[in-house]
């Protein structure tokens, strides 16, 4: 799941996958704005066939938050 997640993050923000870590997020990715985060979410939800609620989506500040959310929804 992590590989796939990193791959999507890399694609959406147009950053080499080697540079993506759990700590990648609004503080170190320039294009990490609210719009792109929702493009990212849209991708993740389709790929993993999950749907996050509004509260969950508001917590997303970096990649690790996404990973935790996916785990919470039963992805490993």
């Amino acid at each position, binding site marked *: 799941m992590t590989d796939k997640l990193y791959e999507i993050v890399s694609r959406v923000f147009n950053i080499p996958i080697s540079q993506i870590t759990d700590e990648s997020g609004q503080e170190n990715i320039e294009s990490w704005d*609210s719009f792109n985060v929702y493009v990212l979410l849209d991708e993740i939800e389709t790929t993993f066939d999950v749907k996050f609620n509004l509260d969950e989506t508001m917590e997303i500040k970096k990649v690790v938050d996404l990973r935790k959310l996916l785990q919470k929804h039963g992805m490993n």
Partner: protein
Amino acid sequence: MRHEQKLSHYINAARSLNIEKYEKKIRVALLGSFTLNGMEETLKVKCSEIGVGCITYVAGYNQYNQEILNAQSDLYKFRPDIAFLLLDTRSVLGKIYDSPYTASEVERREFVEKKLAEVSHIIRSYVEKSDSKMVITNLPLPSYSPYGIYETKTVYGLRDMVIDFNTRINSMIKTLESAYLYDFDGFVRRYGESNVFDFRQFFIGDIKVSFEYIPHLVHDWVGYIKAVLGLNKKCIVLDLDNTLWGGIVGEDGFEGIRLGDTPEGKAFVEFQKILLALQQRGIILAINSKNNIDEAIRAIREHPNMVLREENFSSMQINWNDKVANMKEIAGELNIGLDSMVFFDDDPVNREYVRLSLPQVLTVDLSDDASEYAQNLMDMNDFHVLKITEEDVDRGKMYLEERQRKELEKSTTNLEDFLKQLDIRVLIKNANEFTIPRISQLTLKTNQFNLTTKRYQEEDIRDLVKKGDYWVGCAQIEDKFGNSGITGVFIVKKGKSEWSIDTFLLSCRIMGRKIEDGILAHILQKAKEGGVSTVRGTFVPTKKNKPCENFLSDFGFKKEGDDWVYRLSDPIKIPDHLRCDIE
């Protein structure tokens, strides 16, 4: 539903676009009552896919009013070719959207009047201040009402307000040449309100078209861009077996093909119905099929459930030749470019072959399932034109007549006999309100038989007519096979002792029938009657007008400097294969 890429694909692809490298460009302004994020990127990428560099301007969030009303705004500095103004019901109705029934019926009516006046004013200002086209959306009709089932019993309730607004904004648009209405409500109906509008995305970023549907929406807009740039397709070329009917007529036989009656057969009938309606509005249909002509023709002529018949096809290449060779044959026969053709074939191998050999042709990725063919066709944004004229509607018939003419030509031994048997009648008409649009259109698009290739907008023609010393006329051509409509134009400047031919052109549709001789003889006769001694003509060579290079000299004009001059003391030879009348 039509296949689409995800929004992130477009956002990513937009980053690496080099707009400069495209020869064709379009400047597009996007304005809206809500966030337009993602639409700009998608539009740029979709334009690049059709070889168009799209330069965009996105107005600030909900700034459309100020931008349009202020002639000094960045919008006008940008000089768009086309502007899209997106409105949504929630923003336009404001408070009344949330609480429609705290207002009285009278107040609701007044509110709609006020909004109509506002929006109409905006559209008019834009059209007046710029040369650009404008596309404005109507309002999606909300499915929910606090009145529930009573909503449709309510006089001028929320639903009626939106319907009234839409109807009247549309009527107003019809009066403006350069404004168009995009049926946003139709878009929402097609994909479903609960899909297009996603509450979560709305709460997060005022997003009123959810990410998944942005590419679909932009796909529709590209239809306008294709129409504006003349990239629309004019001809659909169709395979037969498993495309127009189920099965293979050569193997399954006349009785064995599936067409109508069965569920599978109905899919082909439906596809044919959509094709027929397109043909009736001016899209040319042609066949490119590997088949024995006798078997295929019998199915087309006699199968009880065929919707399309022989007369609907302007060209039929039914043989065992190569599909690519057939495509070229069709283009030649119809005298249209490969780049205005679309190819439908169920066989992916044929498709790939045509796509690789003739990339100009749009080869459609048909679904594997024939039940989706009709939808595949309806999903295309390639057939839009900004105006549908009478000539468009008659086009299919004209090509059929042309086919009959060619058959006659083959059966007669020489050109003279053929021309005599055609019974050509040339009807000369003067420029007036009915003929000016067509006259202008012909000067704008005729390239081959055009002596001077001068382009005139409708306004220019009106100005010439007003001047008084210009004779602007056109010719409507009929023969025993049918009426070709107005297909010739001439503009003559009338001096005291000399007339000069400013413009003389014939549509390629009627070339090769010596009609030009009839029209020119008529002009010379009129000049003679008017006591003029000479008529002067010029040939201005272009890349494309070689067909009329020798026209003046062949007719008897004598070279004088760069011009060609006819002395009216010489007898005028009047062609005897046609009749020339004056309206």
